[in-house]
């Protein structure tokens, strides 16, 4: 699904956020990325999600060589195959949960009726069937993140990238969000989660540890095996 090969990223100021990262993530995996602040986790996730291009090295997603794709093609790739969840939710204010999710499907080429139908279905799936008409300010933090997750997966992407999805939530609420992400993983989605919290990371089947722009450990060694498509880890 994803292959990073010798990826480096140096920002304009001369900061090297990624200093040669190689990482392969198979279809259907659930991966946690951990590491101290400033170690390059978010940078790597952005590169994984094609929001940013690496300074050097190659990125392949779903067989596409990201470096060879135009901006429009990358946008199409994101629209169809990648979902993002952010720490700050990024929900549209004064817009119902339903419309927030439905509008997230704008760039998938679906008509309004179909967008709304799918949005309602996915909101029910994340347990917010009773909050369709609530605006973000009428929702709890955990509910807002559920809306954001619903928006990310409404287009049925194969890959879900979450940058500290529980960073703004208390531990009980975080629990619920993690359970939801696990469920999505069990349904076949490849999920990559950045997290600061040990307990969360410990509960994930594969952990990638970063420091100073490098991967210092990866529990997903070849010996563990990587599930092939259609056989997600943890599926019954």
């Amino acid at each position, binding site marked *: 699904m994803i292959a990073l090969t010798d990826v480096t990223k140096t920002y304009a100021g001369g900061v090297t956020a990624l200093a040669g990262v190689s990482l392969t993530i198979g279809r259907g995996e659930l991966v946690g990325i951990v590491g101290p602040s400033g170690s390059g986790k978010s940078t790597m996730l*952005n590169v994984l999600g094609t*929001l940013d291009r690496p300074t050097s090295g190659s990125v392949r997603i779903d067989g596409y060589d990201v470096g060879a794709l135009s901006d429009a093609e990358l946008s199409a*790739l*994101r629209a*169809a195959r990648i979902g993002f969840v952010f720490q700050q939710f990024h929900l549209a204010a004064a817009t119902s949960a339903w419309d927030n999710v439905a509008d997230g499907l704008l760039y*998938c080429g679906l008509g309004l009726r179909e967008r709304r139908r799918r949005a309602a279905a996915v909101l029910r799936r994340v347990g917010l069937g009773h909050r369709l008409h609530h605006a973000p300010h009428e929702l709890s933090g955990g509910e807002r993140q559920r809306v954001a997750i619903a928006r990310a997966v409404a287009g049925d992407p194969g890959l879900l990238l979450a940058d500290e999805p529980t960073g703004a939530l208390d531990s009980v609420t975080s629990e619920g969000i993690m359970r939801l992400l696990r469920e999505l993983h069990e349904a076949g989605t490849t999920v990559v989660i950045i997290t600061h919290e040990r307990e969360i990371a410990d509960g994930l089947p594969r952990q990638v540890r970063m420091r100073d722009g490098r991967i210092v450990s990866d529990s997903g060694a*070849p010996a563990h095996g990587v599930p092939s498509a259609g056989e997600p880890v943890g599926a019954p």
Partner: protein
Amino acid sequence: MTVDVRAPELPRVQGPLRPARLRPRDVVKVGSVGLRTRPLRAFLSALGIAIGIAAMVAVVGISASSQAGLDRTLAALGTNLLTASPGSTMTGGQAQLPDTAEQMAARIGPVTSVSALGKVPDAKVYRTAKIPQAETGGLSAYAARTGLRATTGATLASGTWLNEATGRYPATVLGATAAERLGIGRAGADTQVLIGGRLFTVVGILAPAPLAPELDTAALVGWPVAQEELGFDGHPTTLYVRAEDADVEDVQAVLGSTANPEAPNEVEVSRPSDALAAKKAAGEAFTGLLLGLGAVALLVGGVGVANTMVISALERRAEIGLRRSLGATRGQIRTQFLAESLLLSALGGVGGAVLGIAVTAGYALYQDWPVTVPPWAAAGGVGATLVIGAVAGLYPAVRASRLSPTEALAA
């Protein structure tokens, strides 16, 4: 090292990646996000555009309505009236029309009617003898032929017109302005004015005569009584001639030499309907000035929209980043902000056009003109706002689309 079991062994057939196109409806939807979330700001910047468009539409509309009013007046009065009056002699003195001028003019083939007015010099007009001599009020006494009213197309506001009988007696018909200045509202047997020191009964009052404005300030008396009582010399000072519509210009060409064959150069021939149209044309220059002012207002409105769009794009960086992460292309972000700018100014343009039409209608009805707004003015106004919206929105839209997704999200 981890191994991906899929990628190397099963190179899947990859279709070309093509971003989905936004439907027109969805373009309007994303373009109106800013308007819905910040309605007051949207309203105010649209208002700037609206004022400019309203000013321009109203200026054009009022000018067109006044033209339509004039056309209607001319259609009612006819454009086939000619006048001939004595100009100056070669030596610079006041010329005279010969006594025979009327009969001569009537012999011109296409002429349908001829009438005359003769100024009675030194005959002042007063309401009563108590008013001091100096205050003549700009009114003059004229001897009028009985056919004058029919030829000039003047209508009576009150009373009757002079006839063969009243033309021999001290009876007068006042022009509209003259009656007003003298404070006379109605004609009547007991209403009298002083003309040249003699009392005349006011038998009629004329309505304003657009084709013969000199009648408005006149006190008209019969030709015989003017000669007998006021010392009028019998020389007409203005000849009024109606001709067949098709031949007006031919008649105009020969009227001078016909009225005064001895000194055709001393006759001034004019066509009052042309004078009315010329007066209207003089107003056009002013219309141009107002139109320019409207254009400046429109430009200022456009700057307001540009300002709103720059701020909107700056404030909504996170939204832009999110949309990019959801799969929006640069072009789609550009389209969104351009659509917002266009919607904003279209709103202003349509509002302004409606306002301009309303102002035109109000003013035209007040002036008793037919309400006329040329469709090109309203359409052109709205079209201009779209151009302005596109220009104003272009830079902010391009800037928003150039933003890298990660930078935008970090904002």
